[in-house]
């Protein structure tokens, strides 16, 4: 037999029916663990594909000028006119070039008030220290973003902003690198960084391949299998990476790119011996400081990095356009 006044979780019927929620029970219990939202902070920083050109610390400038010279076979010899001809008028001009990499301040700042901090569950709950730890990941994301922007200035292009990425476009990019600099060719290894949509289009194009040389390659099959990380596989000798930070151009396309070593480089700087800083944490390339605002009972968590990325030798990279 049903009672007339059951004890329920929710208020059933009239408000006087005595639901426990919000008084004796919680409307929602929050999970103990803080789970991470999807992110993409993978980049090529610690690979041989990006050339580290040093730190600006103590260098006297915010800029590193990468010196480039045509040596070790860049210039060929010539036959003398005769065995005793005076060739002093035929000296060779040394080919030189340079690329400037300028480090600039990159930042991220969070503000957290004391009430938000003190009500945390402790452990790895959100507090200024957990935020500081997170900032190290923000640096990696920024690095990937700047890599994408830098690569958008490569002169040579393959593919089009109006078509999806295909195996033909991929081949074109490889051929452009192989015949770069008037046929000298950029030495490998090559790596392609593709927007996720472009990668799926390339996989679609691979599935539709009919030529046995391509469709029966083991690496072609490997490229089609889904992988969790940003490395998608090796296709025709090119390491393929997926990145959400490939530049979106204003012609409704993606500026995917294929590079060889020394196409792109970077410089950085790390503040050291910061005067007046009471609480400073050096986390790899990033410095995190806490700025206390007692008047508003809050703490700013400031992360700073000094980073510069750029094209070192344009001929060593190709922009691989695809439709957005």
């Amino acid at each position, binding site marked *: 037999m049903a009672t007339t006044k059951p004890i329920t979780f929710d208020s059933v019927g009239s408000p006087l029916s005595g639901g426990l929620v919000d008084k004796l029970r919680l409307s929602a219990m929050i999970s103990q663990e803080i789970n991470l939202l999807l992110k993409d902070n993978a980049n090529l920083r610690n690979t041989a594909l990006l050339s580290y050109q040093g730190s600006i610390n103590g260098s006297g400038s*915010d*800029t590193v000028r990468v010196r480039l010279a045509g040596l070790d076979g860049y210039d060929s010899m010539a036959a003398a006119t005769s065995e005793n001809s005076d060739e002093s008028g035929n000296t060779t001009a040394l080919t030189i070039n340079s690329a*400037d*990499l*300028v*480090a*600039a*301040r*990159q930042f991220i700042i969070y503000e957290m008030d004391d009430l938000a901090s003190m009500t945390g569950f402790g452990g790895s709950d959100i507090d200024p220290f957990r935020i500081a730890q997170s900032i190290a990941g923000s640096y990696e994301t920024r690095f990937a973003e*700047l890599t994408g*922007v*830098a690569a*958008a*200035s490569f*002169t*040579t*292009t*393959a593919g*089009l*902003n*109006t078509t999806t990425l295909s195996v*033909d476009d991929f*081949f*074109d990019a490889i*051929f452009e690198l192989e015949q770069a600099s008037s046929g000298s060719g950029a030495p490998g290894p090559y790596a392609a960084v593709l927007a996720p949509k472009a990668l799926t289009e390339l996989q679609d194009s691979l599935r539709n391949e*009919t*030529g046995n040389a391509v469709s029966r390659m083991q690496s072609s099959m490997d490229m089609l299998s889904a992988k969790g990380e940003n490395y998608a596989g090796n296709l025709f000798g090119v390491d393929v990476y997926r990145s959400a930070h490939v*530049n*979106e*151009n*204003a*012609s*409704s396309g993606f*500026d995917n790119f294929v590079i060889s070593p020394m196409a792109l480089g970077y410089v950085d700087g790390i503040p050291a011996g910061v005067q007046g800083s009471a609480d400073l944490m050096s986390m790899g390339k990033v410095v995190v400081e806490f700025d206390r605002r007692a008047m508003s009972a809050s703490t700013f968590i400031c992360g700073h990095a000094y*980073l*510069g*990325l*750029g*094209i070192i030798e*344009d001929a060593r990279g190709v*922009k691989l*356009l695809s439709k*957005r």
Partner: protein
Amino acid sequence: MTDYSRFAQPWEQKTEVQTRIPKKANSRFFFAHNPENWELKMIEGYSMTEEGKRKKQKTPMLLPVLSSIHEVPGVNGTRAVGSRIDSSIMRTNLLDQGWTIIDPIKHDYIRVYPAHKGNYHTSKWIRLEKVGRRVIEHFDSDSFDEWRIEIMKSGVLNPPHPQIAALRLISMNRAMSRLERDQHIPEIANRLKTKQTELKNTKAAIARVEKLGGLAYEL
């Protein structure tokens, strides 16, 4: 006695909060063109028949592939100087390598939207729309092509060098030769036919530039 009622304002519900598009902010950019980069487009126009009637026709044209060069402090020599962004090193490098920079102020092609953590810069031919969780982009390619034809006609960019444009034919031939062996498969035969048509039109566009120079962009 003071009557405060004349200080009162009629109550009004705040109807609009500042709208921000659900996209990550990006930096400002400018369009630049390198003389190596062209793409084939079939442009619709009208011609007069012998009987004096207007006839619709498509003309193959090589239009410039424009690169969006973003000005981000720390990238390609760009730096923040005071409160402004100084991209002069990057611009000088581009000019040294033969690029032409298309001034955004003079040609008015940038549109700026408030976005997540700043502004989102894009071109005026991209229209953004939110559908469900996604931001859909509509690109008005016809207007973009018209604008590119205008900058060619007005001499902002020089017409393509026929030899440079012909380099495209090499990659097109390569793509066709990969298909030729399997042309007994109807789907492949169709793809091959499309590529053959594209090759023919590219050759026609190159011939048009060779014959007419800058006037190739007059319909």
